[in-house]
């Protein structure tokens, strides 16, 4: 008995890749938006406030009408980006080395663990990728 397939595997592969790409890219962007909103409120992934800025710096920011955490010129937050790597890995990083150092200074020295995702946020990304393959 001959098995004849009418499945277009090339098209299927292309659709698959496109859907995963879309899921990863849009998840990356929306996660960054959510992350930045959270960072500006000074809250970490667990929902706790991270260490406040020192009073002098806070006052000088306030003079310029700046309330949001980590936003003076806004360079560091604007530098947050993501890339999709092989094996569908989504990596979040800073696209400017100096901003990366600034972020590490806050995380390592001041223990402001702002650059983390909650389990809920990670699950949302994973579900998005699974859902994107429904009805393929």
């Amino acid at each position: 008995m001959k098995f004849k397939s009418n499945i277009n595997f090339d098209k299927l592969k292309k659709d698959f890749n496109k859907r995963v790409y879309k899921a990863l890219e849009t998840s990356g962007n929306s996660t960054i938006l959510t992350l930045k909103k959270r960072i500006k409120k000074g809250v970490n992934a667990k929902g706790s406030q991270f260490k406040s800025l020192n009073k002098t710096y806070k006052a000088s920011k306030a003079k310029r009408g700046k309330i949001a955490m980590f936003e003076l010129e806004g360079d560091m937050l604007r530098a947050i980006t993501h890339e999709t790597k092989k094996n569908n890995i989504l990596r979040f990083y800073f696209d400017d080395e100096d901003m990366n150092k600034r972020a590490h200074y806050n995380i390592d020295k001041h223990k402001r663990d702002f650059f983390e995702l909650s389990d809920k946020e990670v699950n949302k990304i994973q579900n998005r990728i699974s859902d994107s393959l429904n009805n393929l």
Partner: protein
Amino acid sequence: MSLKDLIDANQEELEDIIAKFDKRLDKIFRKVNVLATARIANISDIDDVVKFDVIWRGILEEAGFYNLLQRYVNTLDDLQGSLNAVLTEAGLLETLGADQIKRLTAIKELQIKGIEQIGIDAGLTLKKGLYNNVLAGKTKADLLMSMGDELGGTKYASYAKTYANTAINDYRQATLNQRAEVIQDDDDIVWIYDGNDIDEVTRDFCAEVLVANKAYSTDEKNELEASPERAWNCRHFFTFVTRQDAIDMGYAVD
């Protein structure tokens, strides 16, 4: 009227021309920046480096840089013509020796070369900055320092930060646009205006877009992105998400 008065009067007129030239050059460089960022974002290998100068000259041409220089030269020619006319009228032209006429012509040539050089230096610096940023992943601080050094001594030095900020932000936007290209015909994709919260230096245009809190189609986004009101030193950019993401984050979706 003495020859000195005539030349002083002529100098005032010349300064006015230079001021207008600078104003127009600023506009042209905004255009150069937009064009350059879009095109340089596509450069990915060493072969493109060879083609770079051709691309760059095309950008300058399209932005109107060479037209402006030609207009400047023409204006100086006219100015010299009018100076000659005034001198003739005053019966002074014949009193100028060949050396003095040569000197006036040399001054004119120097003015043209000087102005041309400022424009070229600024363009070259911008080109280098963008180019290094794209190819070598330079940091903003590196870019600023290099631009400051290159432009030192010219009025463009004070614009270095603006050039750098604009170049980086435009490059980020060009990268996002490219990433969205594969899926931009997907109706599920919408664009959100992201960046600094509203503060005392936020432009009215950006504040209005931020306050509207809307998700935009690609066409709407392209129109807003190209608005001249946000062309220079803008601290915002458009990022793409799904419709559902936009709704979940509280944006108004049509």
